[in-house]
């Protein structure tokens, strides 16, 4: 088991509404585009809502922690995806169990692809995914890069930045996170971005995603709290800077 972030472990202090345990998947090999931002936002917002965060890392070869409340996983380079490949396959059943059970999860870019059925590279070799999400990804020569705006029914306008050459298509078992208003999203043909399945939010968007989209962060936290404590009592995070950053980001060029 790798180290915990200092100051976040231990029993919930007096006055806390309870402890929520967040596990980062493969931060050592899959963290290339600011994915730490997503973990940090969960950690701080859990605190701001009056709960106690416990942030754990899961890397290749570690023992998977028990009692996981939220799972967050990021993108990586091709080399990072190869490193985690075997370990992820060995974890497939337990991750699938957690997903079917309703554990809230956020998977970005590389892990979004690997949570799907397979990734077929440009040269035709097939990297198996773990099949939690009914999606498939095909490598292309075209890199989709730039600012993205997505219209979603659940989280309002979602803002982020995409940078991927794999193109993902959704099967009937998942629904898209939203419809792209600027940028490309899952692929260059159907105008969809990301995927939703049970309490999983999957997306190509970096930026990092959660800081400028606190509605998604709060969805993950609320779901975790309701599953663990039967109810979620929100605090009052100060989202003025998030709002202003969203306003400015929405007006930046592609």
């Amino acid at each position, binding site marked *: 088991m790798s180290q915990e972030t200092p100051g976040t472990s231990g029993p919930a202090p007096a006055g806390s509404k309870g402890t929520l345990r967040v596990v980062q998947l493969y931060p050592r090999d899959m963290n290339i585009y*600011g994915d730490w*931002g997503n973990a940090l936002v969960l950690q701080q917002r859990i605190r701001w809502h009056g709960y106690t965060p416990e942030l754990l890392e899961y890397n290749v070869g570690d023992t998977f922690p028990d009692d996981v409340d939220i799972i967050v996983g990021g993108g990586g380079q091709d080399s990072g995806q190869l490193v985690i490949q075997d370990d992820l396959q060995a974890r497939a059943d337990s991750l699938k169990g957690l997903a079917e059970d309703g554990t809230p999860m956020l998977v970005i870019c590389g892990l979004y692809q690997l949570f799907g059925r397979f990734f077929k590279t440009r040269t035709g070799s097939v990297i198996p995914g773990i099949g939690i999400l009914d999606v498939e990804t095909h490598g292309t020569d075209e890199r989709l890069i730039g600012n993205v705006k997505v219209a979603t029914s659940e989280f309002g306008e979602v803002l982020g930045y995409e940078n991927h050459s794999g193109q993902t298509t959704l099967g009937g078992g998942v629904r898209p996170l939203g419809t792209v208003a600027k940028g490309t999203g899952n692929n260059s043909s159907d105008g969809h971005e990301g995927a939703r399945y049970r309490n999983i939010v999957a997306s190509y968007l970096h930026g*990092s995603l959660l*800081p400028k989209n606190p509605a998604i962060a709060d969805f993950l936290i609320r779901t975790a709290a309701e599953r663990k404590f039967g109810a979620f009592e929100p605090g009052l995070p100060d989202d003025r*800077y998030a709002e*202003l*950053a969203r306003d*400015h980001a929405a007006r*930046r*060029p592609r």
Partner: protein
Amino acid sequence: MSFLSVPLGKLVRRVSRLRGGGSALPGLVVEKIDPGFMRRTLTTLPHGVAVVSGTNGKTTTTKMVVELLESQGLKVFTNRTGSNFTRGVAAALLGEVDWRGRLDADVAVLELDEAHAVHFVNSVPPKYCLLLNVLRDQLDRFGEIDKTAQLLQHIAAKTTGTVVLNREDPRVARIAETLTGQEVRYFGLDDSLLGTFPNDDDMRAAPGSPAPAGLPEKPAADVVLRKVGADTAEFEYDGGTVSTAMKLRGVYNIFNAAAALTLARGICGGAAADTDHGTLLAALSQVAPAFGRGESLTVEGQPLDLVLVKNPSGFRLGLKSFPAGGYATMIAINDNYADGRDMSWLWDVEFDSLRDGGVDQLTGSRAYDMALRLQYDDVRIGAVEPDIAPALAAFIRGAKGQPKRIFCTYTAMLAIRRELSKITTVEVVS
């Protein structure tokens, strides 16, 4: 047409200068009508061409190499205009050659952007190259950092003589394994300094976890940076250790001095066995940072440091090299093409070191992204004003009588320098 290209290019250069135009247009003209111009002119130089590339520190390192070689009496051609694209090189060349296209120089030392260097070396194979590092810089431009490493590998493969590599950057050091005919020289760091150079790979790794696979065994380095003091540094080469005063500030700049020394030794050693190490070191101690790279200005009698930050490693090194205590701090983050449009990188920098003093002023097109980032690290935020001119004026007004420091992205730095020269007397002190 080639007999006409030089006079024509020089003419375009004069006209575009009169018009106050960009530095690359005359280069473009020559490139179009005479594609062999650069190769003909540069490859006939006695010591050939040295290319400096990598993500961070190209400008300062190139400047150092030039000054080191000049200390040895060599005439050096370089692309000083900072136009580090092929056309910029052609444009700079046009300014230096005579009307018949002859260049009066012994060696060319060129700073080239990774992607453009690939095109350049295809038409002008360099005799030397110096590859500094592969950091997460403008990933939205080059894709992934492994891709950037491939670009550098291509530069090394096209080099005909000596390849100088950073021993401590696994992606750069491993380029050696792909080379066949070239001589490889490394510059390196003392183990005690490795901790101050976190790389992107172990950025979030648990403390003490193994570094990503570098070279199986560390090769001997031509020059090793052993120690860094307040204004001194200790280098080891030829089996001895020498201590020297340094005008350069910031550990990463001084590590690049080791890189420059390695390349300069490679170039001089090849021809002049009488390389004068005394003057080489004296020249090194006198090198001042390139503009905006840890540069110190004086504003209203107080120092104002400009620290260029382009990527997570650079930002973290900047925060570490220039402690916040006693300084008023401003951060300016733009997201223009030259800065990189993706703001994700701000989330891979820890800002705890600014918690005590807070940040007085935030500015730039992504000032609110920066504010949001600091909020999540519990850093106190003074004022936020995306427009750089009023933000800078407010910062200087508010921090009267205090030393100031501005961390800024590339285009924000250009804007800040422009403003500084307007609102106060800017005196360059180092």
